[in-house]
């Protein structure tokens, strides 16, 4: 190959690389853009898809009602973060710098959220997070529509202890969220005078849990706090059931929701407990209405869970904040987002201004006969101040 051809070929390839970056066409109208960074692949896509459906429905309803700021429509720009923190950062930067979104919604894992937070701060863009987490975030630019241990473990542990016995075993994934949840469980077990007889963590992707199951069986625990959501959790429950332990030891599966119904047989899921702010089977008018609207928009087979609600709620909060601020200026939206109340699927819920966490209505759910039903309505729960009196600003 001569130098000339070589030069042309390289130039062409380089041009391809650079052209791939070409800026997008300018839109005719000016919608208010909301960025979404959720996992649509890579492991947590179940939650990602739920969030996307919640947000989509909220945007559709708001636009049908005339949009915001004198008729400007909302527009969702959805990016897949592949359940990966690096990609989350890339996508967040893209949404903020190129698409000029007013807010970024997502992601699912705490790791990705922590990675995205500096981006939100650097570019002064609100980050709207809608998944349960371990608590403790205090940041002007981060809003969390999340159940934290104050919401669930503070109620769940005493309830289980009273009903089934005060010996607990904790089995979780080996990362930050399960560890923090273990601390909350330990705190509450101590409070009721019970005992944590064993704590065990597992890496991702383990396929045979027999050593752990054997340990749990021997431990004398009455209640197993299972902090292994997703596919590995299904595998665990399946093997746990096969070893015939479900009758002796009650399982509280953290973050378990309606998705478990499709993955597990009724026999396998029977009797598992969970604590959530919303259940699709909740007998309240707003809950029934919310589920019906989801089914109308996404078909009758759609799974509706608390994650759908939280992302829907976040868009609603954002819309209220935009209207209250009267502008799409991001700092002004942040200033106006506090202490707003929305009703999604389970009564009115409020985003506190002082720490950007939610006052939620909580439920204890139980898997019964292939359904997830309400075992106990815990009512409105006000969590402790996650900023501990520090100033958010």
């Amino acid at each position, binding site marked *: 190959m001569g130098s000339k051809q070589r030069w042309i070929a390289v130039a062409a390839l380089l041009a391809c690389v650079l052209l791939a970056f070409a800026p997008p066409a300018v839109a005719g109208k000016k919608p208010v853009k909301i960025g979404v960074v959720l996992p649509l*692949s*890579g*492991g947590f*896509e*179940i939650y990602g898809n739920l969030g996307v459906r919640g947000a989509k429905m909220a945007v559709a309803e708001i636009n049908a009602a005339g949009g915001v700021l004198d008729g400007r429509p909302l527009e969702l720009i959805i990016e897949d973060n592949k359940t990966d923190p690096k990609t989350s950062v890339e996508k967040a930067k893209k949404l903020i710098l190129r698409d000029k979104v007013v807010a970024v919604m997502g992601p699912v894992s705490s790791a990705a959220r922590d990675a995205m937070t500096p981006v939100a701060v650097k570019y002064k863009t609100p980050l709207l997070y809608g998944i349960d987490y371990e608590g403790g975030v205090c940041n002007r630019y981060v809003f969390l529509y999340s159940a934290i241990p104050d919401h669930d473990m503070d109620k769940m542990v005493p309830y289980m202890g009273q009903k089934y016995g005060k010996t607990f075993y904790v089995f979780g994934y*080996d990362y930050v969220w399960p560890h923090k949840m273990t601390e909350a469980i330990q705190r509450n077990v101590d409070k009721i005078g019970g005992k944590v007889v064993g704590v*065990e*963590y*597992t*890496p991702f*992707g*383990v*396929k*045979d849990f*027999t*050593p*752990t199951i*054997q*340990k749990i069986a*021997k431990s004398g625990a009455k209640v197993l706090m299972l902090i292994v959501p*997703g*596919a*590995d959790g*299904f*595998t665990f429950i*399946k*093997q746990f059931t*096969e*070893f*015939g*332990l479900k009758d002796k030891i009650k399982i509280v599966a953290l973050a378990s929701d309606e998705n478990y119904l499709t*993955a*597990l*047989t009724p026999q396998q899921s029977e009797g598992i407990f969970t604590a959530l702010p919303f259940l699709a089977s909740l007998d309240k008018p707003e809950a029934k209405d919310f589920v019906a609207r989801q089914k109308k928009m996404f078909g009758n087979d759609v799974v509706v869970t608390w994650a759908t609600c939280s992302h829907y709620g976040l868009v609603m909060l954002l819309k209220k904040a935009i209207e209250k601020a009267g502008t799409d200026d991001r700092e002004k939206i942040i200033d106006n987002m506090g202490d707003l109340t929305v009703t999604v699927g389970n009564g009115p819920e409020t985003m506190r201004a002082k720490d950007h966490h939610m006052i939620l209505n909580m439920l204890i759910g139980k898997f019964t006969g292939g359904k997830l039903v309400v075992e106990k309505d815990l009512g409105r729960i006000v969590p402790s101040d996650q900023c501990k009196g520090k100033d958010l600003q």
Partner: protein
Amino acid sequence: MWDIGIQLLHSLNYILVLVLVAMGLVIIFGLMRVINMAHGEFFLLGAYTVVLTSQRGLGFWPGLVLAPVIVGLVGMVIEWAVIRHLYHRLLDSILATWGISIAIKQLIIIFFGPAGLMIKPPLPQSVHILGLVYPVYRLFIMGVSVAVIALTFYLFQRTDFGLGARAVIANRDMAAALGINTRRMNRVTFTFGSALAGLAGAVMAPLMSCDPQMGLGFFIPAFLSILVGGAGALSGVLVGGAVVGGGDSLISFLFSPVTAQIVVFSLAIVLIRIRPQGLVGGRRHE
């Protein structure tokens, strides 16, 4: 003291599972010197064959029969299309099979979605062993594993095919000169190894949630087993499986699964470094 018995039972279970997965790998590596990085995905294909038959209402058992056939055929096609061009390029065959593994995994995601899928347990009963409720299906797995090991050993130690295969392992050029069709031998071996991986996947599927990432979880321990035991001899995989599987199971029980993985992997690496020929590997030529 029953604890020890129970622990032994659990360890044996995991060891047999590991050996079942590693068997196809060791045949391909021993005979063809090809590291099949797509082995985990062949396992995956086997598992998803069972998922498919279950979804179609055919249930588990037809899937169990179909899986080795289908995956064996896939293996045969891949051998024909890719592997046979790379026999003289060992490192390239690693990379190529690894590219294939990415493609197969993506195909599975495209057809079945990325989420974990579960099938109904085919043998939900359990029996009492050592005062322990033990699932019958686990006994079935152990039975299948023992049968596969016995069959493979029979095939390689007692049949003409096995004699030819061992001749090829010992000296490929000489075997070819003696009229053994090494080309055909490679094809048969790769197909057989793939079929074993498919069978392993199908057998293991009811135990767990099947997701597209499940292959890797078995591939690495299986491979370490082979290298620890010694790739040259079939019996190496038994020893290696016992070391890696037994170690993992025991440390999981005594400490935690996380520790087990780190410790077992590290020990395996050190063992491979000290004895590259494996624990039962023969003398190396000086």
